[in-house]
C-alpha cells in the first residue's frame, strides 16, 4: 500500500536531489565519467577533448522579467559546457508543447533562443518536437543538450586546494527571487530581474587572459550555497567566505526577508563561482568587470582546511556559522 513516491523536494537541487541521483541514477548508470559529477562530462574522442551536457527546462512562469524559458534553455546548457573550459559549439533542442499553446508565444521564445545563441556562437543542429494533449505538460518544456571543444584543460570541481581564492561573478539570487516574486504576485517598488546570461565570453576572456582557473561552476539550482558545498565535498576542503563581500541586490534581500529565504540558496542563471589560484584575484576581477553581466564580480573568500567539507560564513562582526547545503522543497520549477 504505502509505495515510495517522488516528492518535489527531490527536484529542488538540494540534499534530497543529491540522494536521488546517487542512490538511483548513479547506482544503475554507474561509470567513471558520470561519477565525476561535473557540470558537463569531459570526453576524449580521438585527439579531441569535448565537454557534453544536457538540461531540461520547466520554469513556471514561462515568461519573466529579463527572460523566458527559451533564453534560459540556451544560456543554461551553453554555461554548463563553458564551465569545463570548453567553447560551446553544437546544441540539440527538444520542445514538449502542450496542445493549445499560443503560436506567437512559441515564436517569441524561439526568437530569444536564436538571439542568445549568437552570444556564444553555438548552433542548434538537431531537434525534436512533441505536442502532447492538454494537461500532459504545463505549457512548454524544453530540453537542450550540447557539446563544446575544451580549450582549457584541467578545470574541475576536484581541484580546490588550501589558499585558492573564490570569486563570484555577479550578485546572487536574482533569478530565484525574480521567479518567486512573479509567481507569488509580490509587487515590488523596485525592479527585480533575472540574471540569465551566457557566460562563455567572460570565460573565454579569462582563459585568454591567462588566469590560473582551478574550477568554474554556474550557481543554478541551490544557488551559491550548493556550489560552495559541492566544491567543499568533492575537493575535501573547507571554504571560508565573508558575508559582507557577497553581493546581493536590495530587491533580493527584501524578497528573502519577506519569505524567509537566504539569497545564497536562490537559483542564478548567469552567475558563476570561480576558483582561482592565490594571487590571481585582482586580474580575474579586472577582466570580469569589463563585461556588463559580471561587472559586480567580487572576491568573496578562500579555501582552507579548517572544517573539511564545510562552508563557513564569516559575519562582519566577528562571528561565524556554517553555510549548509540547501534542503527541502526549495522552489520547484525555477528552471
Amino acid at each position, binding site marked *: 500500500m504505502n509505495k515510495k513516491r517522488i516528492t518535489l523536494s527531490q527536484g529542488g537541487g538540494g540534499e534530497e536531489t543529491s540522494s536521488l541521483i546517487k542512490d538511483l541514477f548513479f547506482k544503475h548508470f554507474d561509470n567513471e565519467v558520470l561519477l565525476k559529477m561535473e557540470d558537463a562530462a569531459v570526453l576524449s574522442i580521438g585527439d579531441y577533448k569535448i565537454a557534453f551536457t544536457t538540461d531540461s527546462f520547466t520554469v513556471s512562469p514561462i515568461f519573466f522579467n529579463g527572460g523566458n524559458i527559451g533564453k534560459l534553455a540556451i544560456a543554461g546548457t551553453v554555461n554548463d559546457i563553458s564551465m569545463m573550459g570548453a567553447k560551446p559549439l553544437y546544441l540539440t533542442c527538444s520542445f514538449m508543447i502542450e496542445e493549445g499553446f499560443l503560436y506567437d508565444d512559441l515564436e517569441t521564445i524561439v526568437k530569444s533562443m536564436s538571439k542568445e545563441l549568437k552570444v556564444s556562437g553555438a548552433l542548434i543542429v538537431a531537434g525534436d518536437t512533441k505536442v502532447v494533449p492538454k494537461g500532459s505538460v504545463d505549457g512548454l518544456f524544453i530540453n537542450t543538450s550540447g557539446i563544446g571543444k575544451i580549450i582549457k584543460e584541467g578545470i574541475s570541481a576536484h581541484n580546490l586546494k588550501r589558499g585558492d581564492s573564490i570569486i563570484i561573478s555577479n550578485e546572487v539570487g536574482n533569478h530565484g527571487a525574480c521567479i518567486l516574486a512573479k509567481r507569488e504576485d509580490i509587487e515590488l517598488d523596485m525592479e527585480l530581474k533575472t540574471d540569465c546570461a551566457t557566460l562563455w565570453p567572460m570565460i573565454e576572456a579569462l582563459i585568454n587572459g591567462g588566469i590560473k582557473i582551478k574550477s568554474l561552476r554556474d550557481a543554478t539550482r541551490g544557488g551559491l550555497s550548493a556550489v560552495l558545498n559541492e566544491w567543499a565535498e568533492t575537493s575535501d576542503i573547507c571554504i571560508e567566505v565573508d558575508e559582507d563581500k557577497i553581493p546581493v541586490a536590495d530587491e533580493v534581500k527584501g524578497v528573502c526577508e519577506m519569505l524567509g529565504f537566504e539569497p545564497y540558496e536562490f537559483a542564478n542563471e548567469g552567475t558563476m563561482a570561480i576558483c582561482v589560484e592565490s594571487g590571481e584575484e585582482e586580474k580575474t576581477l579586472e577582466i570580469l568587470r569589463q563585461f556588463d553581466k559580471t561587472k559586480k564580480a567580487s572576491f568573496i573568500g578562500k579555501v582552507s582546511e579548517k572544517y573539511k567539507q564545510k562552508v563557513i560564513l564569516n559575519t562582519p*562582526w566577528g562571528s561565524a556559522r*556554517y553555510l549548509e547545503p540547501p534542503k527541502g522543497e526549495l522552489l520547484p520549477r525555477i528552471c
Partner: protein
Amino acid sequence: MQLDLIEDFRNPEHIKALAKLIKKECKTKINVMEICGGHTHTIMKFGLSQILPDLVEFIHGPGCPVCIMPKERIDHAIALATQEDVILATLGDMIRVPGSKTSLQKLRADGKDIRSLYSPLDVIKIAQENPDKKVIFFAIGFETTTPMTAVIIEQAIKLDLKNLYFHINHVSVPEPVDAIMSGGDSRINAFLGPSHVSVITGYGIFEPIVEKFKTPIIVAGFEPVDVMEAILMLVRQFNEKRCVAENQYTRAVSRKGNIKAQNLINKYMEKRSHFRWRGIGDIQNSALKLKDEYARFDAEVVFDDILPKEPIDDHKLCICGDILKGNAKPFDCKVFGKACKPSSPMGSCMVSSEGACAAYYKYGKISGKGLK
C-alpha cells in the same frame, strides 16, 4: 519597502558597539529564554552567542507554531486531505511535518490536492475557483497570524462561501511560558519577548508573567541589532535591580497592541479549554477555536467523524521537553543529527527551521558557545 531598515539593523558597527557595552556591563548570569523561534533563528544565523559574554546564555523557547503541533493534529490535516474532493491549504513548513504515518508532502505526491500558501488570503480565491470542492484551511500560528484567519472568515461570510472550512490551531504565547515556569525546575531568569506577536497583543500582555515569576522581559525586534540591544536592556535591569516588561521594538510595538485585530479575533474565536503542545503537554486556555455560532465553518465540527482523537507522544529518546525548559541543549540529545534530522524529525524542535534543534543543525556547532 524600507530596506535601510534591514541595513541599519544589521550594521556591523552597531552590533560590535553593543557587544562591547554588554561585555562591560554584564555582571550577573542571565539565562534568557527567547520565546519566539524567529529569535532563535536570528541568534544562530548571525552567530550572536559567539560575541556575547559567557554570562549570557540563550534558552530556546516554544515559539514556533509548526514545532509545537502535536502529531494527532497533523493526523487531522492528513485525514482531512485524504478525503475525496477536498483541497487542503496551509502555511509554510507545515507541509513537511510527519504525522504518525505520513506527511502532507508525501500525501501530495500521492495525488492529493494540498496547497502551501504564502498569503493565507489566497484561500478565498481557491474556494471561489473550486466551487465543487471542499476547501479546508489548516490555520496555524501564534497571535501574529490569527487576525489573518479572522479576516478570511469575515470575507467568507461576506462572500457567502459555502465550501470553505477552517481547522483552527491558533495558539497563544503567555500560557506555555507560564507552564514552563510553573514546573519549578526551570533555570530561566529572563525573557526575550516575541516581536510580531507583540505587534498584535501589545507588550502589556507579558506584565503578569513578570509579576508572577519575577523575571524581566524585553520585547525585541528580529534583527541582530534588536536582539543585542534587548540583551543590553536586560543586563541593565539586572544591574539596576529592576524587573519590568520593556519594549525594544518600539518601531512596531505598543503596550496595548493592535486593538482592531484583537477585536476581530474575539469576534470569531474564543479560548479552547485546553490544547496539547508537542514537547510540553496539555496547557489550559492556550489555544483558540471558532465560536459555536460559526460551527458551520469549523472543520473539527463538520468532519468530526473522520478525525482521530487519541494523543500521540514523541519518541521516548526525544528530549525536546527538556530543551524547551532550558534544562538541555540540542547537542545533549542522543538522537540529534543522527536518527533525528530536519528531513526526518523525531521531535518538535527539529520540525521547522525555527525550532531550536533545526537551527543548531543548520548553522552548526560554530554558532554555539565554547565551540568557536
